[in-house]
C-alpha cells in the first residue's frame, strides 16, 4: 500500500538532480532575510513601514486576509469528509487541513507584526469586547487554529518515526512521548466529526466576519456593502479549493502517483469550478448594486474617485468577473477536459482572484478620503508605498508557508494505516 514518494527532478544531460535541497535552501534564505525585517519591525516599531494615519492598514493586512482565504478549503473539505462521509476525499481532506493550518498560522504571524504592541497580543483573550468584529476574528483564529492542530496531530502521528525508531529503545522518554501522542491522536481521530463541526462553524463565522470587518465601517467608500461577508466566504471557498486542487495534483499525482485516483482530483476541480462560478455570479450582482449602497454623498464621491483610478476601475471589475468565468467553466468540466496542465493553470486564476479581491477591498476605503467640508466635499487620494521592511516580513511569512508545505508534502504520509476501523 505504501507508495514511493517522487520529487520533481531536473535532467542535466543524463543525470537527474533532486531539486528539493536547493528549493529548501532558497526558502531558508528568504526566511532569514525576512527575519532581519522582523527584527527591525519589533525593535523600531511600525515607523519603519509605509503606513500612515491616513492608510493605517497595508500590505500585511492584505496578506493576512489572503492567507486566511486560501486556507478556506479546510472547512469545505472538513464537511465533505466528516459530515457527508465521502471516504474517497479523505486523503485530499488531510491536505486541506494542512493548508488550513498554514493559512491561519501565517495570518497569526503577520498579524503579530502588525500590532503596535505585539506583546499585548493576548489582550483580546482576557479583555473581551464581544461587539468588535476584530475580537471575534482573533478568537476565531485562535480557536480554529487549535482545532486545526487537533486535526493535524493524527496525520503527523502517521509518520514512520512514531511507528518504530532506534530512539524508542535508546531514550525511554521518547517512547513515553510517542505513546502519549498516539493516544491523543487516537482520541482526536475519534473526535474528528465533532472537530469538523466546530471547525466549520468557527471558520464560516470567521470568513464572514472578515468581510464584515470592513462592511460595518459605513464612513468609508466601497466598504459599506452588505454582501461583503457572503462574498468573503464564497471567495475563500473558491480560491481555497482551487489552491487545493493545484497542490493536490502536485502532491498526489506528481509526488505520490497512485495514492489518489484521478477521478477524485477531477471532482476537486469540479467543486472549485462550481464555487468559482457561483462567486462570479454573486460578484456581478454586487457590482451592479454598488451604487445603491452609496447613499451618502461623501461615499458616492469616494466610489466615483475610486472608479477613476486603475485597480478599482470598471475594466478591472470586468476582468475580475470574466477571467474566473473562463477558469470556472474549465474547472467544472474537468472530466471532459482531462488535461491536468490546463486544469492547474486554470486553478491559478481563482487563487489570484481571491488575493486581489482582498487586496482591493482592504485599500478601497482607505485610498480615497473625502474632506470634512459640509458644503463642498472634495475627494483626496492617499498614498501608500510599502517599505522594504514590509516586503521582508511578507517574505518571511510566505517562505514559512512554502517551507512548511514543502517539508510536509515530502515527508507526511497522507495515507492512513487505521483506515479500516
Amino acid at each position, binding site marked *: 500500500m505504501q507508495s514511493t514518494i517522487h*520529487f*520533481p527532478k531536473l535532467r542535466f544531460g543524463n543525470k537527474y538532480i533532486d531539486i528539493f535541497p536547493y528549493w529548501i535552501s532558497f526558502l531558508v534564505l528568504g526566511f532569514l532575510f525576512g527575519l532581519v525585517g522582523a527584527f527591525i519591525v519589533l525593535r523600531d516599531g511600525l515607523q519603519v513601514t509605509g503606513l500612515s494615519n491616513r492608510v493605517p492598514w497595508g500590505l500585511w493586512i492584505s496578506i493576512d486576509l489572503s492567507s486566511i482565504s486560501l486556507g478556506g478549503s479546510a472547512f469545505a473539505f472538513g464537511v465533505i469528509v466528516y459530515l457527508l462521509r465521502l471516504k474517497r476525499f479523505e486523503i485530499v481532506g488531510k491536505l486541506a487541513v494542512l493548508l488550513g493550518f498554514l493559512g491561519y498560522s501565517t495570518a497569526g504571524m503577520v498579524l503579530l507584526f502588525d500590532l503596535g504592541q505585539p506583546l499585548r497580543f493576548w489582550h483580546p483573550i482576557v479583555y473581551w469586547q464581544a461587539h468588535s468584529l476584530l475580537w471575534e476574528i482573533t478568537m476565531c483564529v485562535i480557536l480554529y487554529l487549535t482545532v486545526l492542530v487537533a486535526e493535524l496531530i493524527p496525520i503527523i502521528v502517521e509518520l514512520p518515526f512514531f511507528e518504530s525508531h532506534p530512539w524508542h529503545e535508546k531514550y525511554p522518554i521518547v517512547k513515553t512521548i510517542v505513546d502519549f501522542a498516539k493516544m491523543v491522536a487516537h482520541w482526536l481521530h475519534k473526535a474528528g466529526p465533532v472537530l469538523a463541526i466546530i471547525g466549520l462553524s468557527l471558520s464560516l463565522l470567521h470568513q464572514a466576519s472578515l468581510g464584515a470587518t470592513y462592511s460595518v465601517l459605513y464612513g468609508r467608500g466601497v466598504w459599506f456593502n452588505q454582501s461583503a461577508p457572503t462574498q468573503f466566504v464564497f471567495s475563500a471557498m473558491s480560491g481555497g479549493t482551487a489552491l487545493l486542487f493545484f497542490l493536490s495534483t502536485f502532491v498526489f499525482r506528481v509526488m505520490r*502517483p497512485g495514492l489518489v485516483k484521478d477521478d477524485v482530483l477531477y471532482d476537486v476541480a469540479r467543486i472549485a469550478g462550481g464555487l468559482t462560478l457561483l462567486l462570479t455570479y454573486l460578484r456581478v450582482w454586487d457590482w451592479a448594486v454598488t451604487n445603491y449602497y452609496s447613499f451618502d454623498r461623501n461615499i458616492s464621491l469616494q466610489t466615483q474617485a475610486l472608479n477613476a483610478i486603475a485597480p478599482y476601475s470598471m475594466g478591472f471589475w470586468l476582468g475580475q468577473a470574466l477571467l474566473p468565468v473562463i477558469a470556472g467553466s474549465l474547472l467544472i468540466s474537468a472530466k471532459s477536459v482531462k*488535461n491536468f*496542465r490546463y486544469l492547474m493553470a486554470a486553478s*491559478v486564476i481563482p487563487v489570484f482572484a481571491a488575493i486581489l479581491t482582498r487586496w482591493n477591498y482592504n485599500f478601497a476605503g482607505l485610498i480615497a478620503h473625502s474632506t470634512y467640508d459640509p458644503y463642498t466635499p472634495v475627494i483626496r487620494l492617499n498614498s*501608500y*508605498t510599502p517599505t522594504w521592511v514590509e*516586503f521582508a516580513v511578507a517574505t518571511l511569512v510566505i517562505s514559512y508557508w512554502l517551507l512548511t508545505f514543502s517539508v510536509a508534502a515530502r515527508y507526511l504520509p497522507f495515507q492512513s494505516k487505521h483506515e479500516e476501523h
Partner: protein
Amino acid sequence: MKKNQKIFVLLATIACIAAFVVLVVLPSQSVSATPGHKPLELKDCLVCHDQAAHLWEGSRHSSGNVSCIVCHKLAQSGGDHPDNAKYTVESEETTCLVCHIDVTGADISGEEALSKHGRVGLTCISCHEQHSQGLKLSEGSRIVCENCHKKEMKVMLNSTHYKAGLSCVNCHMGDGKSHTMVVALETCGKCHANPHDANIMLEAGLDVKVMATPAAMIELTPKPTEETAAPVSGGINMPPWTLVFGGILIGGVLAWALVGRDPGNPSGNE
C-alpha cells in the same frame, strides 16, 4: 571664669546674629505669607513647575520682582496649594491690567476697546507667552502676526518696507508700543518727511527700482510651503520589481500551460 566668659561672649555673638537674622532677613521673606501657612517661595514652585519657572527666570517680570504669586493669587481661604486654593490666574483685568493699565488701557479693558484685536476678543496671552512675556510663535523667522494675517504677510514680504528691515510693529505699534495696532497718520511722516526724498531708501541699502504695482507684488509672493495639501493623485505605489515578479509568475504559469509537460509524468520517474 575665663572659660565661662568666652562661652558667654560666643553665646552673645550668636544671639546677636540670630536677632539680626530674625529682625532683618526673615520679615522680608514672610511678607507674602498668608497667616497660618508656610510662606511660599520660588524654590517651592520650582519643585513641580520648573518648566514654567525657567521661562519666568529670564523675563522682565523676574527682573521686576513679579514672582509667581503676584499673578497666581492665593485664595482667601488660604494657600495650602494645590488642593483647595484657586492658585491661579483669575482674569486679565485682575492680573495684567493691574500693572499694565497704561499700555493696555486703550485696547483691552472692556468696552473701551479701540483695537480690532480687542473687538474680536483677543487678550494679552493671545500673543504673549504669559511666563516669559515673549511673543508666541516667534522662534526662527516666524512672527506671531503671520499666524492670522497670512494674506497681509504675503504682500508685506515683497514690500520695500520689508526689504528695508521693517516689520509689522514698526508702523502698527510705533515707538510708544501702542497696542491699538492702528497706524497713525503721523507714522508715515516719521520716515517720509519729504516723500520725494529717495535718499532714505538708498541709505537703507536698497536697490531702488521702478515700483511694482500691487497686483504684480502679489504675483511675486512665494507660494506658501507649510500648507501642503494632500496629493491630488495617489494610490498604492508598489515598487516596479513586484510587477516584474508577478509578471514572471503569471507568465510562467501561462507558458507552462501552453507548452509545458503534463504534471502526471514526473521527469525522474521514467
